[in-house]
């Protein structure tokens, strides 16, 4: 997996790309520029081998949002030059312009971060943040949440089964399921709270609060390509700023 040129990049390099895209679409007013990022992101996704899931995720989430935002702007943005009407609504060219501009930015920024989370392993990203100064407690919170969610799902299944044996109906119409909500959810939440104490003891048994620096088996390597890319983002961002405001 690490042979892949995109996936092998340092997680922060991937993160900075998303940040760079965000910055660039805010600096550059043209919507064509912002839309142009999308095919580039698809190409990156394709190289990383995640194009399919990336596109399907975007079409399921972002596309709907974009359509709504675009139509709202088109019909309701205040403007005088009417370019068409539909029922009682009027479309203005200002609305069209603004709708395109807004959606192009949402698409570029949204897609950039969606792609970021497709190509980065959260474990790597947290490690990278730890390397640049995130306290271990913060890292623990992020990582343990990721691990504990599936564990809690398993536990909630166990509780559901237990409640079923006691005669609580958990399947059927919406009303039946709503009724089962409290008897299943309450034990889950209470037991999770109760287990925090033991979890804290577990961490202490593993010297979590030991004084002194920690080491880690999980090492991230920063290769020259990461440095080059990061500098490129920075220089391009400054270049865009100069171009926008001084030329």
């Amino acid at each position: 997996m690490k042979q892949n040129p995109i996936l092998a990049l340092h997680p922060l390099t991937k993160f900075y790309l998303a940040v760079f895209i965000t910055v660039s679409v805010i600096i550059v007013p043209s919507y064509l520029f912002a839309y142009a990022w999308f095919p580039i992101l698809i190409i990156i996704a394709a190289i990383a081998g995640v194009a399919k899931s990336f596109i399907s995720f975007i079409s399921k989430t972002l596309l709907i949002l974009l359509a709504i935002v675009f139509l709202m702007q088109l019909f309701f943005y205040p403007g005088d030059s009417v370019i068409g009407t539909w029922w009682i609504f009027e479309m203005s060219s200002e609305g069209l312009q603004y709708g395109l501009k807004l959606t192009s930015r949402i698409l570029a920024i949204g897609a950039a971060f969606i792609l970021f989370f497709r190509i980065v392993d959260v474990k790597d990203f947290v490690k990278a943040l730890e390397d640049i100064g995130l306290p271990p407690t913060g890292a623990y919170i992020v990582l343990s949440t990721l691990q504990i969610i599936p564990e809690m799902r398993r536990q909630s299944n166990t509780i559901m089964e237990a409640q079923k044996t006691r005669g609580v109906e958990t399947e059927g119409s919406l009303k039946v399921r709503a009724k089962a909500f409290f008897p299943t959810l309450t034990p889950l939440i209470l037991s999770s709270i109760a287990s925090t104490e033991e979890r804290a003891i577990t961490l202490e048994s593993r010297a979590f609060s030991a004084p002194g620096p920690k080491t880690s088996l999980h090492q991230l390597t920063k290769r020259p390509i990461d440095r080059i890319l990061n500098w490129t983002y920075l220089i391009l961002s400054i270049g865009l700023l100069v171009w926008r405001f001084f030329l």
Partner: protein
Amino acid sequence: MTAIIQLENVSYRYPIGEEWVLKDVSLEIKKGSFVSIVGNNGSGKTTLCNILRGFIPHFHKGELEGAITLEGQDLSGFQLGQLGEKVGFVFQNPFIQISGVKDNVFGEIAYGLENLGVPVEEIYERVEEVLTLVNIQHLRDKNPFELSGGQRQRVALASIIVMEPDILVIDEPSSQLDPIGTEQVFEIIRLMKEKGKTIILVEHKMDLVAEYSDELIVLDQGKVLMQGPTRDVLADPLFRKANIQYPHVTEIALELQEMGVDLNFVPIRDSEITTCFKHNRGDV
């Protein structure tokens, strides 16, 4: 042998509790010995473990009286994190003894060493060693959350052993294990004792307690009822008062003694059954 842990007149009450869970407990644990703590439910065994590991008073508040010394120093002077290197703690519930930040067993076992700041090459060596010692090499790449109770208990034990504490406090390690798993865990504990560690074990399975431990501490309703070499404690008539099960062989021997059979000594291990009777059967 010198005392590694000493408790003098220790009493403890949990923050919201009315009653004292431990009452005037004084005991001494010698360096390198294998001490078992036995007692019925509610006799204060787990609370005592928490004190030995420093979770009381560092983590659980409440009222603590008396003096606790570890290697001659007052225990409350240690930081909780520092104690991790000195006292290892394995507790009952294996389902919760997973750090929750590692997605494989290898990383899970390495976690304590990472926190202690052990160099990476050394971590690899030590984790490998422990995986073999605890006999869980086959689990190394599995997700700790997907293991069975017994497997998790062994991973939890390995995660503590790898930190090489001088003292191991083990609270009912076999509660989730089948007989074979129990034997394996006790074998590991025995190996730790051979390495010179001090072992403090809470356990209900008296056959195993008698087999392995040098000393017994009998707790009854928060008080130390008896303390001494395993054989002496089991032979003492006071032990019967504590209402704790005898090892099977001891139980039989004591009953035979009551019926008039002479014994050389009271057997506490299965292997002693042949030598404890005064005469061989042929001579009677």
